[in-house]
């Protein structure tokens, strides 16, 4: 059985999954930079190298994400909403019905039917509020590494309100709070709640059953807790939530008979 490769050429990161017959053998990511095709190719080579396999073993490559047209060697190109739905549905064992995806510059809410097909979706417009960019900005301003967001925000004693999810206004607001001596953990907690509110707004209030959160920021347990509090429902996160979309793209190869 040949390998299938899924690539998600996102706005901030390139994610790649290598699988055989739907079983994930390798995952990798690199930051998005000019020359996305070359970066993606190197990522694939690195994965094949770790698996001690060569390009001959590859049956097909499927690409999704904003840069999907930039990868010439793709056999299948699929939009990231469909890829997200397919990937998460499969990885959740067919359980996912509601998904919130937080990407580098967009925020999506998806609803699926019992076959994993998208029945409805919402997506932010061109505003980057509540997206990965927002967290990057906060990490820089607050000087806290992204992987420590959850631990730091749990130390907050007071519940602050961050009034804006607009990246520009939130930056001024955070700067102003810092200048007033507000503890960073309280600002961070407020930021989590602010993003959670925005995601919940996109999803609407009629949420039944668990919500599956994916995309890079889903690794932030502080955000997961905030979203749980906001929606008052269980939030489920897979082990590698930033790779679900690339995996979903790969599944499109199978659907196209190439896997």
């Amino acid at each position, binding site marked *: 059985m040949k390998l299938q490769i899924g690539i998600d050429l996102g706005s901030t990161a390139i994610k790649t999954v290598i699988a055989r017959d739907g079983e994930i053998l390798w995952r990798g990511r690199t930051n998005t930079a000019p020359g996305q095709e070359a970066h993606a190719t190197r990522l694939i080579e690195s994965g094949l190298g770790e698996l001690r396999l060569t390009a001959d073993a590859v049956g097909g490559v499927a690409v999704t994400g904003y840069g999907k047209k930039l990868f010439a060697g793709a056999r299948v190109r699929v939009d*990231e*909403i469909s890829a997200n739905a397919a990937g998460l549905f499969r990885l959740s064992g067919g359980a996912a019905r509601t998904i919130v995806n937080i990407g580098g510059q967009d925020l999506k809410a998806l609803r699926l039917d019992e076959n994993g*097909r*998208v*029945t409805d979706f919402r*997506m932010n*417009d*061109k505003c980057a509020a509540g997206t990965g960019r927002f967290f990057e900005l906060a990490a820089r301003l607050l000087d806290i590494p992204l992987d420590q967001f959850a631990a730091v925000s749990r130390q907050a004693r007071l519940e602050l309100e961050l009034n804006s999810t607009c990246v520009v206004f939130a930056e001024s607001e955070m700067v102003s709070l810092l200048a007033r001596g507000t503890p960073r953990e309280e600002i961070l907690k407020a930021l989590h709640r602010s993003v959670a509110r925005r995601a919940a707004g996109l999803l609407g209030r009629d949420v039944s059953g668990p919500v599956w959160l994916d995309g890079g920021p889903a690794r932030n347990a502080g955000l997961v807790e905030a979203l749980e509090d906001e929606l008052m429902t269980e939030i489920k996160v897979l082990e590698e939530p930033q790779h679900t979309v690339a995996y979903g793209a790969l599944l499109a190869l199978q659907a196209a008979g190439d896997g």
Partner: protein
Amino acid sequence: MSCAGAPPDRRQRIEQKAAQKVAAESEQLLAALRQREDCRPEFEAFLRCLSTTSAASAADAARRSGRPLLKLLCVQAPLELIHAAGFHPFRVFSGSLAASALAAGNLPALTCPLLRAVLGELRLNAAPAAGWVLPATCDWVTRFPEMLRLCEVDDSSAIWWLELPRLKNRADGRERWLTEIWRLKEFLERLAGRGIGRNALLDSIAAYARAAAARQKLRQARIEGRLAPLWFMLVMSAFFLDEVSAWTASVERLLAVLTPQRTQARENGSGRVFLAGSPIVFPNFKLPLLLEEAGLSVVADDLCSSERIFPGTTVVEDESLFGLVSALAGSYHQGCLCPVFADNERRVNNIFNQRDEAGFQGVVFNVLKGCHPYDLESYSLEAPLKAQGLKFIRLETDYTQEDRQNLLTRLEAYRGIR
């Protein structure tokens, strides 16, 4: 980019720069259209009409028609009446981002982008006209004269308001509208210095009926896949830029060469959509191009910039002057689907009625940021359309290009929904 109150040399420099950008927007789109595989020589008549800025196009339209212009916003003023008075009805429309940016500094941030662009273009070049006829439609249009002043547009043309009854289904509303149309007739006669006779009006009604018949054939060609939706929209965009009979003749020449060979499979149902909502105006063809890129085919629409740019054939039962004016008044009021009306059930029914004929499976609803009537309507329509099994997507956008990728992602996903 506002230059109101700026020193004259600075203002001149900014306006020159804006004029270049406005022209470049049209030129870029026209060049791209001419390079398409499905571009035919028969499209040239329309492409040429659109080859200049809207203000310059107005002057060209006056020259082509050999008539003085009468400028319009919106679709409720009977074109036949204006035509019969000896004027060329010219709808001032603009899809130019640069023109919109030019006027932006003088207006509230959330002003309708279309009107902002119109004001920017008029600032650059307000083509001479006999007057304006403005139906009082949305809030933005009713403040248009004020906006002309705020944007320092040098346009001294007389403005004639048509007070538009927002209740179409009430007898007193219809009567008031009929009175408005009679008053418009008097205004036009004063402006022209001559009366509008029954025969002249009959001739004009016949000319627009021929245009409506040609449009109907174009619609059919689009439904059958003989004419790409983008070209349909382009042909309709050129409607006010030529004399009505000349436009009709150009459409007839085009229809003669539209062969079934380009037929898109009718069974490709999930890609066939109805386009509704705010007008899409040349050269801002961002959304039509993205729809195409996403594999969606607009087989019908209700845009007042496209299929609804002029009403259907006016049905005349009584050929007296009173009968003709009454028929026109009814056609332009009762038949209008503009969301400014309070009783507008026809709008949703129109979509259902066209569904069988055009075979679409979904509705794409375009909302121009700041276009409040359509914005609200998009929320009202979603539930009844979905209840009838039509998939629905609402896209809110403006004249900028920066949300292209975001829109494309949504359209591609929308296409996949069954």
